[in-house]
């Protein structure tokens, strides 16, 4: 009987000892906020387009960090953003289903614009300027190409145009050698293989 008691007591005391240490550690290493979500958000293209199914980049980042969303839902970010998020999250990369199109910008056909300000209200980054009853104009430097302004326009005067390529921004493509092609192929195979 005493043997059983000492055993239990020893075990209990031992357990308690570690419990106390862990409780203190828990206090010391308490974490505020979600640093991972912030890290993910800094990777996102901030178009605020909502194509991921979340009402903006920040909510999506939070959802990815908490594991509610997949890493491949950011369409404008494309493969590169997906790979960066997957890398950060330590998960296998997945293919981005919707192919990201060439960068677009909105353009208001000014002679058709009725100055209703609906597009101004819809723009998530304040890239459209204009007063009521006056033509509205898109600031090309600010437009993220999210297309959120196209839908609200009552007279359908907003076009999405391909963003013009600048000579200064031109860069060499991957060399079109066989080996470089192989590298791209492998990447594709890898992505499809793991998804």
């Amino acid at each position, binding site marked *: 009987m005493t043997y059983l008691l000492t055993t239990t007591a020893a075990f209990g005391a031992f357990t308690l000892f570690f419990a106390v240490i862990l409780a203190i550690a828990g206090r010391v290493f308490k974490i505020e906020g979600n640093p991972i979500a912030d890290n993910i958000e800094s990777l996102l293209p901030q178009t605020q387009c909502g194509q991921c199914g979340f009402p903006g980049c920040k909510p999506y980042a939070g959802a990815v960090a908490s594991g509610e969303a997949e890493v491949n839902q950011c369409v404008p970010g494309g493969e590169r953003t997906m790979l960066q998020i997957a890398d950060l999250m330590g998960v296998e990369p997945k293919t981005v289903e919707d192919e990201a199109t060439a960068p677009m910008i909105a353009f208001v056909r000014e002679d058709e614009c009725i100055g209703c300000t609906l597009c101004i209200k819809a723009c998530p980054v304040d*890239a459209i300027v204009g007063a009521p009853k006056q033509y509205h104009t898109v600031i090309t430097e600010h437009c993220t190409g999210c297309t959120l302004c196209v839908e609200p326009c009552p007279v359908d005067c907003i076009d999405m145009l391909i963003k013009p390529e600048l000579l200064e921004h031109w860069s060499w493509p991957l060399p079109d050698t066989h080996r470089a092609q192989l590298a791209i192929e492998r990447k594709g195979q890898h992505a499809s293989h793991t998804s």
Partner: protein
Amino acid sequence: MLHTLLKSIQKSTRTFSGGIDPEMSKITAAAAIATSMQPQLYILPIKQHIGEACEPIVSVGDHVKWGQKIARSQGYVSVPVHSPTSGKVVKIEEHATPHPSGMGLPSIFIEPDGKDTRDKSLKPIKAYRDTDPTELRERLRLCGIAGLGGAVFPTFIKLLKDNRNPIETLILNGIECEPYLTNDHRLMIEKAKEIIIGIDIIMHMVGAKKAIIAIEDNKPNALEMMQETLEILSESFPDSTRIEVCQLPTRYPQGSEKQLIEVLTGKQVPAGKLPMHIGVICQNVGTSKAIHDAIIKGRPLTERIVTVSGDAVPRPGNMRVRLGTPMRFVFAQHGLETFDHVHLLHGGPMMGEKLKNADVPVVKSTNGLLAMHSTSMKEAHKSEQPCIRCGHCGVVCPVSLVPNLLADQCRNKQFEKAESYDLFDCIECGACSYVCPSNIPLVHYFRYGKGQLAQIGREQNFAHASKQRSEHRDDRIAREKEEKAAKRRVVREKHVAKADDDKTSAGKPDHDKTADHKTADEKKPKTTDKTIQKDKPSPKSPPGKASSGKVSS
């Protein structure tokens, strides 16, 4: 005498790390500089230098004189463009430039009238020693002088007398380490006097204590010519003792600014710093001659020496070509008319770029025009094989990178890793690709990586700005909502008080009206706010025509 000899031996033993000894093929070294004929039409892109593009200040139909400014610079890192002859502006539209993308730039087309009347608005400054360096700098900027070695960086920016960074040494780059090219070589032989006066002007401008003219030992006649001219000038020229001529062993890429500085001074330019931070500036001999013309003769930069060479050119030679001359016309004067199965290179074979066709103009950076047979190019662009990690690329790299690892990272899109392996320190000299036994186009991978990193940087900045705008908007909406709610509350309280006073139901529409009124009031400042905002970034015309729109405005 013995002293100088010893000194030059000491100098010549010093060298930079890496480097290669390619077949030099300087077949035009003995060909005197010929003068190009007038073409039917000059094409002048509005940007021929590194930096911001210019804005045309002439319009179609205008008559211009030789040397008249036709496009003015916008921004600091920019120099204007001048008319290469007298004639009429026939059109201003986009035209292909010597750029590997084959993309175009807005260009001014000038039809010569054959009279070559000079624009005399710029007076020669003969007494440059008594002139303030600031005035000389402004003159160089007005004359459109940019580095003629190939980098075309606006020269006036480099020639800044800065008391924090006093310039000790001026290095005159007559290395010309690129195979085939001989334009600097010929210039040194034929225009030695002008070059030396140019050096004197630069030394006066920056207050340099001494100048070194660096020439590789495969150009002994240029070396002799410079030395002789210095001796001749020494009678009239008290300062000529401060200029010395230095012979260096032939090695590629010795002509690269940073490598040349290391060879001559033993110092390395710290990363992210400029040569002036270690008291050195470096100028090409061609630039020196152009500076002489701008100051002493008051002539803007409208022509340059071009080496026309390559195994597909029947009569290779060196030629004084006015800027804007179509390359097809230049080649035609050297007997090359058809371009089937011929590769055209703009610049030398190591750092020059392949041109898609010959219908591009000669610009300020055109130091050479090469036409090569397809067969001789094949050797360089054989199919890429796997890297066997022989490390030869690292051995020849003049900046001590590890090219094969960098290329792997670029190929596999590990751009951040490539950046941490100092991708941006690469000078793209091509020595690694030259020695690679697997024929890997390493430089191409680096350029790809650099381009992608720049793109990523732009996108990140854009994302950051978008995020801020989006947050501002959210803040504003929240604030407006709150203000609206606050106002409504005030109104409701008033209304309740009013209703308490007279218990009629007429208050309700009244309340609505005031609320409407308030919201309209509140909207006003916002819209004005936005219109103010509108003025600043100046909304663009239709994006599809954005670039051409710039021209007409």
